[in-house]
């Protein structure tokens, strides 16, 4: 875990750049991480997904999988891939400032 500056704010991140403390997050940080990952503009649909992920994580301690995201967020899986091309659950988690989804085993 290392400390770094994102959008001028000091944050703790893991080796892959996921925030380890969701409390350190704000929307500017989210935009900066998105831009770094090739998403120059976060639309309402992006925010809907990011907010859903974040709220779910804060409420339950785990981030939803792509499949439950598709069922519960109101954004179908196909669109999730258009919004977050490199893997929706991971990228939305990163932008939303929550730890990397561990997936199930």
């Amino acid at each position, binding site marked *: 875990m290392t400390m770094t500056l994102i959008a001028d704010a000091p944050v703790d991140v893991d080796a892959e750049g996921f925030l380890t403390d969701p409390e350190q997050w704000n929307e500017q940080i989210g935009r900066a991480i998105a831009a770094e990952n090739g998403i120059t503009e976060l639309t309402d649909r992006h925010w809907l997904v990011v907010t859903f992920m974040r709220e779910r994580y804060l409420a339950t301690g785990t981030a939803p999988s*792509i*499949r439950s995201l598709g*069922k*519960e967020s109101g954004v179908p899986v196909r669109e999730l*891939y258009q919004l977050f*091309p490199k*893997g929706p659950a991971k990228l939305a988690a990163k932008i939303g400032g929550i730890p990397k989804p*561990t997936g*199930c*085993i």
Partner: protein
Amino acid sequence: MTRKQIVILGGGTGGTMAANRLRRRFHADEAEIHVVDRDDRHVYQPGLLFVPFGLAHVEEVVRPRRRQLRDGVVFHEREVDSIVLDRDEVLLHDGTVLPYDVLVVASGVRLQPEETEGLTGPGWNERMFTFYSPQGAVLLNEALERFEGGRLVVNLVDMPIKCPVAPLEFVFLADWYLRERRIRSKTELVYATPLDGAFTKPIASEHLAGLLAEKEIELVTEFNAGEVDGVGGTLGSYDGRELGFDLLVTIPLHGGAAYVGRSPGLGDALGFVPTDKQTLQTPVKPNVFALGDATDLPTSKAGSVTHFEAEVLVENIARYLADEELDAAYDGHANCFIETGFHKALLIDFNYETEPLPGRFPSAFGLPLLRQSRLNHVGKLMFQWIYWHALLPGREIPGIGPTMPMRGKKAIPIDV
């Protein structure tokens, strides 16, 4: 106490073990125990892995459910309609109402191949199969016998699935089977997974990726299957990649039992029941417990998990009925044999906190962990006997308890 009603939904691994353990725990005057299942076929699911290769016959792995239950457990061969949580009642399809003091949800998972576009369309059970059901395993066996080479793709659509190592075991055994039939050189074997490696846990994942490479099996990672064309023989991912196949072995999406979806407040969007990871009580209501594949616990959906959970569950149900605090805690302990072909197998042992490590199980003189050996293969074969004769009846197995042993393991520090 007055006689309590304990209703268990599901007569598979978890439901049977829970019923038998509860029956021993409580005198007939103390509790009535009911088990509900829609059929009378108890499948030894690990055995299905061997059926496609002709190494086991499907009849060998299926036995009547009611015969696995102790005397004094009432078996209802009925479909569940729904659960009315407010009234503490289970409604059965035939109109019967079963009131309960304690409910145990142990109905496992339901395969949902129809949720992947095209999967159950043309080509289903002709060139696209799953060995996760008895019927699918038999049909796949017939298809493999006809197979003369080409591209064989094994794909798990998405987690969670039952026994997350089974798809890997399948591809290892397929390599062996094809070599025995001398058509391995005419076959491309591909393993496509939505995970970013061969397996979920780093050390085991590395070991297993090494085995895939050694056996010349192509590993395709982060592949989220979105649609299948069973006529053209292509599997497409949501991010636009395509894999051609002559034979597709799929592990379809898994969800909870259908009645969970029909019971407001009981399950999540996929039909799994939110469950406390330590006590196995559900946040739904204090008198509702769950175990095995039906839960949303962050551990493997596997028989070993269910077995370890059953001990904790029974203890906590007894405490709940006695108005005591639930203090039995499950640590996420899981272990599984991984068949690697050529009469060898690996063994892994882990829990919520500790990933599979090398060493020996259950102690320094036990079976080798994370290493191929003949001893583990023999262990895997013997396990079927242990399952019917010790696990289901709820007998203790000396040296193997619900808590994961650290003795015998080599702790490897991992950079997170």
